[in-house]
């Protein structure tokens, strides 16, 4: 009887709370919906675009970890991409251990002194013929297949991925297109963590309105006794018709003056298991790494100030209880969720012990600093870790903000 009364009491309290909160909540929702009327996110990982962003690449060949990039031309004409590797591998000044924040490196010897951040871009070009898929391993890059160690006609499946149409001995079936001019450098260091961005350009490296490419990345770990694969789609940004073809790419709300590409999202939404939660099916412990990259980047001057944002995290558990925290993101950030607010994982607002429930919803927002030469929006991807394997997935997005983001190309 006492138990029943308690339950009724809980239900009534919840219903009263619902009743009081609803008007305000609904009004707030209405306001939010109203604001979204003008501000819909158009950066997408399930459509083709003119800019592809792969937020997370990892290489550590000594441990069998590498990333496979796949890019496809979905159009019936060839396309040139100018691509930028961003090397964000932090350095350990005294060489005492690793500084890479990814969980695959957690069991390694950690650097005993303060790690030095790094943000170094390397760019290259690739040419895709119509409807052509190409791929490469980040650790090795890619060259013309005929220049691989396997010789003139390597078996299709027995070499590192390479460009098959050299333009001299081999062209496309119509004889008018090839991959000539394509060469992908290997990752600048090993181990490596960083980002890849590819932009559709013309023969003179001027950005063009070609929303024709899509891609995905697979992070593969292979040792003698273990294989693991996690994959995510590249985030595509569509070009708008009024692209002026200069080297400053303006991302913002379609229709705003000077805007050449769809804007990055106002908010990222991450549905996640709280860190250290027990998987209800397998009993594994679950943790999540979040990777964030800024939409504004200055590849011309290598200016990290334009890629720096304070990021607000608004966390809801399954009781609709709300927590929040913030973190500075400069150029690139890979972090375990429960290390965003503390180094003591089980005391984090992202830990199951603190949040109380298995899953949560986190809304991620780069705080606008009002600067005219950069925005503060972000793109990202998440990767879930269980004892038995990993799974990557794309984040959801909401809204576009009035401030533009800029990509400055060399």
């Amino acid at each position, binding site marked *: 009887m006492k138990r029943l009364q308690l339950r009724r009491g809980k239900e009534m309290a919840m219903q009263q709370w619902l009743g009081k909160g*609803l008007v305000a909540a609904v009004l707030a929702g*209405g306001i939010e*919906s109203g604001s979204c009327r003008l501000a819909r996110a158009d950066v997408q990982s399930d459509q083709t675009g003119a800019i592809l962003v792969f937020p997370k690449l990892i290489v550590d060949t000594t441990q069998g970890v590498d990333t496979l990039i796949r890019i496809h031309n979905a159009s019936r004409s060839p396309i040139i991409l100018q691509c930028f590797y961003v090397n964000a591998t932090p350095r350990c000044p005294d060489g005492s251990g690793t500084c890479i924040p990814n969980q695959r490196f957690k069991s390694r010897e950690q650097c005993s002194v303060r790690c030095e951040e790094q943000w170094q871009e390397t760019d290259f070009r690739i040419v895709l013929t119509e409807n052509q898929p190409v791929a490469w391993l980040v650790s090795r890059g890619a060259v013309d297949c005929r220049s691989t160690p396997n010789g003139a006609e390597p078996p299709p499946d027995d070499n590192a991925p390479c460009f098959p149409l050299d333009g001299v001995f081999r062209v496309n079936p119509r004889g008018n297109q090839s991959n000539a001019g394509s060469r992908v450098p290997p990752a600048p260091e090993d181990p490596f963590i960083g980002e890849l961005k590819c932009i559709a350009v013309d023969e003179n490296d001027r950005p063009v309105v070609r929303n024709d490419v899509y891609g995905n990345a697979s992070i593969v770990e292979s040792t003698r006794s273990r294989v693991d694969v996690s994959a995510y789609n590249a985030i595509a940004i569509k070009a708008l018709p009024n692209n002026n073809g200069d080297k400053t790419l303006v991302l913002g709300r379609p229709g705003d003056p000077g805007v050449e590409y769809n804007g990055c999202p106002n908010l990222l939404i991450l549905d996640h298991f709280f860190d250290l939660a027990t998987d209800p099916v397998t009993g594994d412990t679950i943790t999540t790494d979040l990777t964030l990259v800024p939409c504004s980047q200055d590849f011309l001057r290598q200016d990290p100030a334009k890629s720096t944002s304070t990021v607000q995290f608004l966390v809801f558990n399954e009781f609709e209880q709300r927590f929040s925290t913030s973190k500075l993101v400069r150029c690139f950030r890979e972090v375990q969720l429960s290390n965003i607010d503390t180094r003591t994982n089980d005391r984090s607002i992202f830990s199951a012990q603190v949040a109380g429930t*298995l899953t949560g919803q986190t809304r991620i927002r780069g705080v606008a600093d009002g600067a005219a030469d950069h925005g503060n929006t972000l793109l990202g991807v998440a990767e*879930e870790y269980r004892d038995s394997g990993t799974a990557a997935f794309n984040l959801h997005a*909401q809204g576009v903000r009035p401030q533009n983001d800029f990509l400055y190309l060399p």
Partner: protein
Amino acid sequence: MGRTRGRICRSLAVGLAAGWVLVIPAHAEVSTERSSSIIIFPKIIYDGTFDTIVQVSNTSNSVVFAHCFYVDASLTDPTAPPGPNNPPLWQEVDFDIALTKQQPTHWVVSMGRTTNPFDEACALPDRTDCNDAGFDPGRIPPVPPGFTGELKCIEVDLSGAPISGNHLKGEATLLSLLDSPVSRFGDASKYNAVGIVGLDTNDTNNVLCLGGEASSQCPAGPEYEGCPNEVLVSHYAEGARNPVIEAQSNGPSSVATYLTVVPCTEDFEFQIPASVRVQFEIYNEFEEPFSTSTTVTCWGNLALSSINPVFGIGPLGSRFVNTRMRPAGTDPGFVAVMEEFHTQPGAGTARSALNLHVVGQRPRADLIVVPGGP
């Protein structure tokens, strides 16, 4: 108590009306990363080899209700091969969920979820097992053993009428339960639910019109965005080797790809399964074209190698492949996800799921008919 309920209802009516008026205008195509009014999980499995965790969230500041349908597409006799005498069940079971503002929820499809406000929460120092803690979204039935099929959730108002709130998002995690030739115990793959954005022309009746023009069944025209005209698939040729595994000299490896296809047209009222003829336009790395087709009725989980041998590494002659899928002629549209199986000798099989890219919208409407009221 009654007065409280009255307040809730009044609040909801105002809220839903406000939400309805202020709904976001037309959005292009289906999406796997936008909040939507219909979310589709094409691949839900509980067959003894795999189990699935479903996550659904309300991304708005309003309370959201959804009407969800499991569609069991397992064979009538699971021990016999598929065929005309052993068709899939296409058995639907539906249930309702309610999510408070910004509330995430989840359930394991084999367990469902009960409504128990006394579920223990996780807590310091070491309680990390809190599967059912949180506001229960409603009573969610467990799926039967052997279940293979889809889950579809449709945003509705308090009375159960479909609305275009665009407040739902979701993810599904497929977990392997066994060490088997197709997976390793505990291995996980994850995909986003496919979302269909609702439009402000929703007449809230039980015939949901996805894309297309005005017709006798859709007098106000489309109520939701249409299903994609084309679906793009980036995949390995069947049997191709994984270059990372080969580079580590851990081969010979092989990669297999499964496509899970769900027609957009579904009649839950009369339990009539829809069929779609799926055409494949295939390009290898040499830009050489190939094509094939297959038919999917109700739900299909297709190994590429079972569709046609042309997907093999031998016929294609290259490892990476770009495939366009589209419905034939006036067939219904469809949505799909893919899952890759990477097998390494001595290490088992690792899986990764990917959402597929979409292009355009079907010119004809797809209809989802939900059961009417009593």
